[in-house]
Structures are given as structure tokens and as C-alpha cells.
């Protein structure tokens, strides 16, 4: 579905290699996660494969079409959702989707069916005939997704698609990713959400400093799933035991620090007329209790 071989990209007027000899292949019907820290080279890779950025060397093939030699055929197979969800805001949602559908030669009947279905799925029916300018952040993201899917692309590329979206919209996008793959299509997306990638993707690649460091299966491999966070932290050079444990704890435990106990607060409130010394000792006692409880929690985890 997508084959990237020895991709290399350096930005003009920059010594740093943004993407350094990256190679991987995407299979039909899979959801592929692309991980890396900010500036690791994820977006650059995506921009190269969608034709936005020219690259120095290597090849990119989409459904067997080389993005450089046969760009129109390659782009015809792809749907892209950018991270900044920039769209032509002066158009209405329907005008924009129709415009994109025209470019991808989608017939009137098909676009009507799809637009109606997507508008309903993403709850945009009431806004589809309004100017995009008036849309919220999430609505713009949704219209980008509808436009990217209007021609049912074989390869659906999303750059950090869940950023800033409400849980409902995130769930809708995830559901549609699964539906899209079930039809034999491929989804390729970059993300910072390790938990989502762990649950959703068949395979994952981790990039760091422009290099592809690791690529492994998640589907049916419980060990890889369990190790994803640690591998990511280690690869990106940010592994720190305390930081990592805190991150993992987010998934399993309630991280809220305990509130100072009510009765102590009441005590403090009631003793307003008492001396400053007494007030201080009450506060100290409350703080000590919180400290102890946090200590106990950490001890239990270790």
C-alpha cells in the first residue's frame, strides 16, 4: 500500500537531516502508528509521502505509483488530514467537500451518499452549509476528515489527528479508522498518544532524530504492547525511571493528590481568633498527612 525506501530529507539552509534513511512498508488493511517526539521527523516524513515536500533521495510508492514519477496517480489513492486542519475557510463545509470531490473525480451519487453519511457520523449536518470560518477547532478537523475520505482513499494519512478533539469526536474518528481498514484500506497516522496507538494500531514505528529506530507488531503481541511506553521512552532518550513510572501510573492509578482533610480545614477556619502559631501547626499537620499518603502510594507501586 505504501512503500518508503531510504527516504532522506534535509531542509534548505539547515545542516540537520530531518529524515535520515527511513524505510518501511505498509500492508493493506492495517492501522499503522508513527511515533516520535516533537521534531523527530514524523511530520516531515508524512509531508514527503503526501507530496507536500520534495526529498533529497529515496523512493515513495503509494499503491505502486511513485510519488515523484506518477504524482497524480499516487495522490489519487491518498487522503490526507493535516495537523493544523487548514481549510478554505471562506467556503461552506459542503462547498469544500464538493470541491475536493471534484478534484478526485467522485461521481454525484457517491459524493451525496458519502457526504450524508459522514455529516451524520460526525454530527455536522447542522453546520455543513455554514461557512467554515464559523466552525470550531473540532469541526474544522472533522470537515478535513470528511474531505479526505470523500473519495474513499486506499491510504488514509493523518498527522496527529486527535489533537484538541473532544472524546466523542476522537471515538468517532477511531471508529471510522477501524471501518476504513476493515474494507482493506490502510491508515497511517502520527500521534503522541501511546495508549491510543497501543490499543488501535496493528504495527508501530518509532522515529528519533530523523531515524527509524524501531518497528514492531502490536496486534497479537502482548509483550510488545506491554513494553510500548518503555521502548518509546528509551528510544527517544527521555527514559527516566521516576518520569516513566509517573507516566505509567497515569494509565493505572488515580494520580490526584489528596485534598487536605475537611475537618482540619474547618479547624483552621474555626480557630481564626487563635494565635498565628496554632494556625501554622494545623497547616503543617495537614501538609504532613498529604505527604505521608503520597509516600505510601509510591511505596506500594515500587
Amino acid at each position, binding site marked *: 500500500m505504501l512503500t518508503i525506501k531510504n527516504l532522506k530529507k534535509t*531542509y*534548505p539552509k539547515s545542516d540537520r537531516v530531518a529524515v535520515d534513511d527511513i524505510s518501511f512498508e505498509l500492508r493493506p488493511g492495517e492501522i499503522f502508528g508513527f511515533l516520535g517526539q516533537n521534531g523527530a521527523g514524523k511530520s516531515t516524513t508524512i*509531508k514527503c509521502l*503526501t*507530496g*507536500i*515536500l*520534495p526529498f533529497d533521495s529515496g523512493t515513495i510508492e503509494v499503491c505502486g505509483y511513485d510519488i515523484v514519477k506518477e*504524482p*497524480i*496517480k499516487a*495522490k*489519487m489513492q*491518498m487522503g*490526507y488530514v*493535516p495537523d*493544523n486542519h*487548514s*481549510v*478554505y*475557510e*471562506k*467556503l*461552506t463545509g*459542503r*462547498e469544500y467537500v*464538493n*470541491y*475536493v*470531490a*471534484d*478534484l*478526485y*473525480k*467522485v*461521481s*454525484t451519487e457517491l*459524493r*451525496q451518499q458519502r*457526504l450524508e453519511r459522514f455529516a451524520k457520523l460526525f454530527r455536522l449536518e447542522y453546520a455543513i*452549509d*455554514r*461557512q467554515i*470560518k*464559523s466552525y470550531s477547532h473540532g469541526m474544522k478537523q472533522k470537515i478535513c476528515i470528511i474531505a479526505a475520505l470523500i473519495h474513499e482513499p486506499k491510504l488514509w494519512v493523518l498527522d496527529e489527528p486527535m489533537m484538541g478533539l473532544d472524546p466523542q469526536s476522537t471515538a468517532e474518528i477511531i471508529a471510522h479508522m477501524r471501518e476504513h481498514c476493515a474494507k482493506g484500506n490502510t491508515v497511517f497516522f502520527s500521534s503522541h498518544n501511546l495508549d491510543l496507538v497501543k490499543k488501535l494500531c496493528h504495527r508501530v514505528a518509532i522515529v528519533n532524530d530523523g531515524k527509524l529506530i524501531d518497528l514492531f507488531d502490536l496486534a497479537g503481541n502482548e509483550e510488545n504492547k506491554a513494553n510500548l511506553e518503555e521502548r518509546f521512552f528509551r528510544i527517544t532518550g527521555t527514559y527516566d525511571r521516576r518520569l516513566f513510572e509517573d507516566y505509567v501510573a497515569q494509565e493505572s492509578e488515580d494520580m490526584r493528590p489528596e485534598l487536605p482533610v475537611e475537618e482540619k480545614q474547618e479547624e483552621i477556619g474555626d480557630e481564626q481568633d487563635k494565635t498565628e502559631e496554632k494556625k501554622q501547626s494545623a497547616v503543617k499537620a495537614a501538609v504532613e498527612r498529604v505527604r505521608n499518603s503520597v509516600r505510601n502510594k509510591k511505596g506500594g507501586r515500587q
Partner: protein
Amino acid sequence: MKGEFSMQSVRTLFKLDLLARFGSTHKRGVKYRIAQYSNYLFFAAIYAILVYGIYYLTRMFAGDGGLRIEFLTIAAFITIIVATAISTGTVIKNLYQNGDNELLLRFPVSGKEILVAKTIYCYLHNLIVCALLMLPFYMSFGAVTNAQVGDYFAYIGITLLSTFLPFFIANIIAVPVMKLMNAVKNKFLLVLILTIAAICGIFAFYLTSLTTFLNYMRREGETLISSGTIYHFRQFANAAYPFRFYAELINGKLYGGLSSGQLALRFLYIFLINAALGVAAYFVTIKEYYKTILYGIETEKASFHKTVEDKQRKAPWALFRREFYLILRSFNYSFQYFAMACAAPLMVLFCNRLAATMGTESLGAKIMPGLMLMVIIIFVTIVVSFASTSISREGNCFYHTKIIPVTYTTQVLVKFALYAVVATISVALCCIVSGAYYTSDAGGHVLSALDVGCIFIISEILVISLTCLYMLIDIKSPTFNVSGDGELVSANKNIALAMIVGISVAVLYGLFAMLFSFIPLKVGEWQISSIGGDMGNIYLILAIVSLVLLGASLSALFVNLNKNYQKIVP
């Protein structure tokens, strides 16, 4: 909202506002400073020309014409109306539409403090505008009527007094005007038509005034103001209250003016009018400001809504429609492009008439074809300079042009087609309007239909080749500097370059045609032009040069287009 009030908070908010508007006091680069000082110099030069013009008008009417009160009344009327319009815009923008209302309310300050801080800014802005508008009139009046030193101080005082009327009216009418603007802002065609009418009206008024003014300068000493004009001036001045009160205060006791008692009465009238308007403005603002920032009425029901049919179209036509709608639905772009293209024929006619009045008197009617050619190319160049932002205007959506399955050549061709259509319509209308006038009795038959046809062909070919060149400039060096709503922040360097190139070419073409319309030119055996001869050979040379330019610019744009386009990185 209507919590406590502290002048300290108001001062802080006001300072914050000024800092946000005019930037920090940090040292900037040399380039920035040069650009800044150039802007100041440019503004000062324009203002000096304006003041000079006002002085001449004052001499013309208040001095030689003896229409002192009438002139001052009209001056007060015009300046107060203009100041009211500007002040209304400032109040709407700062008080009601500024997004920082929401931001400021997050600070521990009350709505009243924000309102007062913003009102202070609006008033100071109004004060500066009024001073810049009114003082040249009043000071010129003093100079023309040999006023005493004390009178000049009185003029400054009356200017200060005059600042309240536009400010109070602006505060009263701001909300209705804003609602009206919101009601029509999505009626793009209506806005375009109104803009075209406004441009034509302002331009016609400007050039009529300029023609009268130039006539006055040339025939100084002669009485140019007819008794009919004097009668209308007097009628207007007698009815134009309260502006006449200001005029009478300025005139004071000069030349059979009013007595001290009468002047005091005029002052009282002005005071009472201002007090009434001030109270009304206070209540309107207090009521509307809170309502507006709480409920956001400036955006209420303002979102554009249109139901279109889901229908398949060819990709080039879809691209063409998108480009057209993006221009039409942006006030800035449709003003720069469509409105100017539609208003160009009238502007060309007025300019031709003005230039013809001066030029043909000294050089003869033979220069008329060259003059018309130059004026048409200059105006249409200004219109098509819009093509020099064809790629930059994509802004944040530029990535879209790279991911769609349409070749870069098709995308650029579609844009080029749209610009070529608009340029052709504009050139044709310019030729029809000016041609109809100069081939008629009213225009003195200084042009033949053949002249007009040749001018059309030459201008059309040249303008199309300039369009190609402008698009190439933008492809080579686009600037994706867009504002919040996706529009270019300001005219970029490409527009300036396009204008310089276009105007230079227009002047060269015009000068060539004008000079050789009365200077004989022979190359070898070929007598290109002769005294009293026709313009055929001149047209032929210009047409050939234009065709060569067209060929060169088309190949420059399209030959390496893919390579050049691929290099553009958003």
C-alpha cells in the same frame, strides 16, 4: 461585570492597550527602522500635499471668493462628517469587535474599567484625527484672513471643542452601524456593488475637485466661482446647523462677524448640543457595551450560510470556482481586485480627461492615443498586480495545492485564466468607455475607432504578459504571511514589485506613443512616424513588442513550472 472602579486599573489597561497596538520599546533592526521612517516620511509628504491643497482652496473661496462663513461651514461639515465616520469605525473595532474584551475580562478588572480604558483610547484617536483634519482648514483661514496670534489659539480651542461632536455621535451610531454591517457583510455581491459605487463616487469627486483646483491655479486672478455656485454655497451654509455655529466661532468678529454676545450664544448652543449627545452616548454605550461583550452580538447570526447542490464538476472548473469565491468572499481581496477592475473604466476616463485637458493644450490632440494607452495600462496594471499574490494567498492552505491530484500546470493555468478574464473585461470596458467619449462630439473626436481598437489589442497583450510575469514573481518568492482569517496580512513585496514593473512599462509605452506622435522617426528606409502622419507604425511596433513580451513571459512561467512549484515549501 459592573464591579469596582479603580483609575489605577484603567491606567494599566490603557498602557497595555497601547503596548499591544504600537509594540514594545525594544530595539529593532535597521531594516525595520528604515521601513518605519520611510512610512512616516511618506505620510508626512502626503499630508503636506493635502495641507497645501487646503490652503489653496481656502484662498480660492475664503480669500478671493469672499465666502468666508460659507467656506468655514462647509469645512466644518466635511471634517466633522469624516471624523465621525473614522471615529465610528474606531469605536466599533475597539469597543465592540475587539477580541481582547474576552481576554481582558479574565484579569481581575471590572467591565467598567475596560470600557473606560478603551473609551480613552477611542477619544484620543478621535482627537488626533480631528486635529489633523480641522487644523489645516482653520490655520489656512487664519493665514488667508491675516488673523491675529490670539485667533490661532482660539482655532485650537475650537478644534478641541469640535472633537466631542463626532465622538459622541460615533458612540451613539456605532451599534446600529455594526448591526447593519453584520447584516450585509455576507451579501458579497451587494458589498461589491456598493464598494464599486463608492470607489467611483470618491474618485469622481476627487478628480472633479482636482480639475477645478488646477484650473484655479492656472488662471489665478480670474473669477472662477460663478454666481450660481455662490448662491448654492450660501444656501447650504445658511441651513447647515450646527456646523455653522463652529464656522461663526472661527470667523469671530472678523469682517462683519458676530458680536461677543452672539458668539457666547453660539458657544452655548454648541455646549448644549454636545451635552445632550454626550448623555445619550453615555447611556447607549453603557447599555450596549455590556450586552455586546456578554452576548457577542457582533457575530450573532453573522455566519454565512448557503445551500449548494452536490454535483460533479471538472477539476479545472472546480479550481476556478474556488479561486473566484475566495476572492469574492473576502472584502479586502474583492476590493483590491474585482472592485478596482470594475471601477477602472471610470477612473481611466476621468484621468484621461484631466490629462487631456492639460496635455493637449500644450502638445496637441496627437498625444491622445499614447496618453490613453498609458492611463489604461497603469490602471489595469494596478488591478492585475493582484496576480502577484496568487500563490501567497493560499496561505495555510498551500499544502492543499500539493496533495491534490491535479498537475501544478493546471492549477496555475486556472488561476491565470481567471486573472486573464478579469483583465480582458477591464481593458475592454476601459477602451469602450474612453473610446465612446473620445470618438464622440463631446470628446472632440480626438480618437478614431481604429485607434481605440489598436489601443485595446496592445493593452490586452501587454496586460496578459504582465499577469504571467506577476504570477512568476510569486511562484519564485511567495510570502505565506496570513492573518487569523487566512488573508494576507498586508500587501507584500511582490505587489510593490509588480506595481513598479507595470507602471514603468506603461510609462515607457505611453511616452513612446506620445513622443513619436509628433516627432518624426526614420529607421533606415522605414519612416516610422512623421509630423501629421498616422499612428499605424507606432501601434505596430508596440503590438510586436507586446507579443514578444507575452511569449517570453508565458515561457518563463510555464517552462520550468513544475520544478519551481515543487521548490515552494509552506
